[in-house]
């Protein structure tokens, strides 16, 4: 089984430049997300910047360091579609923690309907 990889190997190496570029970009993006904290941005600006840099870094690592950019769509789709279940889970748990917070505030702090 292992021998079949031979064919792939000749085609599978990439120029060193691309790795260097991604490497550099990751440092720069990490620096930027650190700066978000340094300059003490708050509110929506902070959240959106954090998420933006996070997804950009994650995307770069997956696409280039993990070679997903060069993989065939069959593999890429198998890996990415299950994330919808996680997205649904996140979405519903946001609704859930808001409800929990509401009921805690209502019953423990306000004192309930009584």
């Amino acid at each position, binding site marked *: *089984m292992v*021998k*079949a990889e031979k064919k792939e190997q000749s085609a599978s190496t990439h120029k060193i430049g691309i790795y260097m570029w991604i490497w550099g970009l990751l440092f720069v993006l990490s620096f930027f997300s650190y700066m978000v904290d340094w300059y003490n941005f708050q509110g929506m600006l902070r959240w959106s910047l954090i998420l933006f840099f996070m997804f950009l870094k994650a995307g770069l690592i997956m696409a280039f360091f993990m070679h997903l950019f060069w993989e065939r769509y069959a593999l890429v789709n198998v890996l990415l579609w*299950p994330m919808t*279940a996680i997205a*649904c*889970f996140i979405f*519903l*748990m946001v*609704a*859930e923690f*808001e*409800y*929990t917070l509401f*009921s805690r505030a209502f019953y423990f702090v306000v004192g309930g309907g009584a």
Partner: protein
Amino acid sequence: MSDEYDNNKTYQAQSSETMGGSAPASPDMDYVRPAEIPDQELYHGHSFITKWVFCQDAKVIGVQYFLTAVFTGVVGLILSWLMRLQLGFPGAAGFMTAEHYYQFVTMHGMIMVVYFLTALFLGGFGNYLIPLMVGARDMVFPYVNMISFWMFFIAVAVLMASFFVPGGPTGAGWTLYPPQTILPGTPGAGMGILLMLVSLSLFVIGFTMGGLNYLITILQARTRGMTLMRMPLTVWGIFTATVLAMLAFPALLVSAIMMTLDKILGTSFFMPTIIQAGEVLDYGGGSPILFQHLFWFFGHPEVYIVALPAFGIVSDLISVHSRKNIFGYRMMVWAIVGIGALSFFVWAHHMYVSGMNPWFGFFFATTTLIIAVPTAMKVYNWILTLWRGNIRLNTVMLWCLGFIVTFVNGGITGIFLGNVSVDVPLSDTYFVIAHFHMVMGIAPLMVIMGAVYHWFPLVSGKFLDEKLGKWHFWFTFLGAYSIYFPMHYLGFIGVPRRYFEMYDSPYMTSAVGMNEFISMAAFIVGAAQFILIYNIIKTLKVGKKAGHNPWKANSLEWLTSTVPPEHGNFGERLPVVHRWPYDFSVPGAKEDYITQTTPPSEVVHTEVEKT
């Protein structure tokens, strides 16, 4: 797929010369493109230990999984007897305290769902059948496959050890809901729950090792000509169930880790502020609902982890034993995949009365009812497969028919419970017990039994005794109905589940006769299962020889070089597949089945399906 060779169109009788002749019509008609990957080299065991204990042959691992799972299943069965003894005849067993009862309920549930059904379908049938059915020599990573079984074995050992620790096994109910699970006062809140959580974590780790093997063997190691849409539905069912397991077990692992920390480190992930016996405990600020979400994010896919392999296997059994192709093969595949995908979006229908965000009921009731659509499609297709088939009413077919009846019954009560307004009065009653035992207890069990009678000739080379098999079936089928059908009624009059005794409540007076009847039936059904064990022992000694392909089936597992198959499965050369496994009773064919390896040139004058 069929770009390379267009042999699959329906070949009508081309000329009078080819009728009945065996000469190939054209040489390139049988072309299957060459192998992409070299043949797998196997590690053959040389000693007793490497051949039978730490064995790397998926078939032996499958049998090991099967036997271990059956052992835990028998433990679960005995626990259910003890529970029914208490419910039917309170006080009849002198040692039975309320604590014992809860421990038995909990262990029965966990054993049957996780350690029996999941391990049996995926570990047992998955290991045995996947490499054979897709035409592989073995799993792609046999070494890890072997470790997978031993992790499962240790998990079972840890679980069984919890019967013998001080305080006994946990009695928190199989859902292990905090906060009561780890609080003093709950049976087994000390060592019992810890061993349960450790055992579950080990099970998840071990299963991940096996599951990776099943998935990658199916995706990356099929034989030449075996496309995904030519795989038997058994493989599709096990495949999709394994995908669910790989994505759902993480939630169980995470909740087990968090609860372990709550227990031993005193964190408060799931523990709110609690006053116990007038004393404020150290816990505070946690969310018990979070555990329920995590648990059911695992728990609902788990239902389909048990159900989907059963769907797949029963489709194959029905097709073979009614000598007819499965009706709507592609629809069946997409239904399996669709059910699997949807199962991740329905979990909170187990939590309608939990106090979660009230808007969730709307979302989850909708998704739950949508999942009924592909499920109903499958039921129609089974019935349409039987329709005007050449049905052999043997033991295997009886189990299949029993499956359809019990599954439809359990499925319909599921639609009741999926609606919030119907579920609220019915939840935590015996109606729920009846529902899930019908749909994921009895129905998959019927398939397991059918599968055992179907594949035993492959595993051992001998037929199981048909007469004993029919007794086994009728006792189980009628008995199971006698147990669970009255439970629906108990649920409607409001008898709550998980109660040790009804004492002098109105439920006691109106339900007492029915409870006695159910218990009697449960004793008989449980005892009837030992007919199978007797049958197996008897068959191994004096059974009728089965020989090659005794059911005249088409799929690859019957086309091995030896029966039972040796390590490596297919002798010198791997089989080459030309068609799906459902070419039964094809018009114009010499026999009523055309195996998957039969090249098109041999059946030019028949109307085979294009696959």
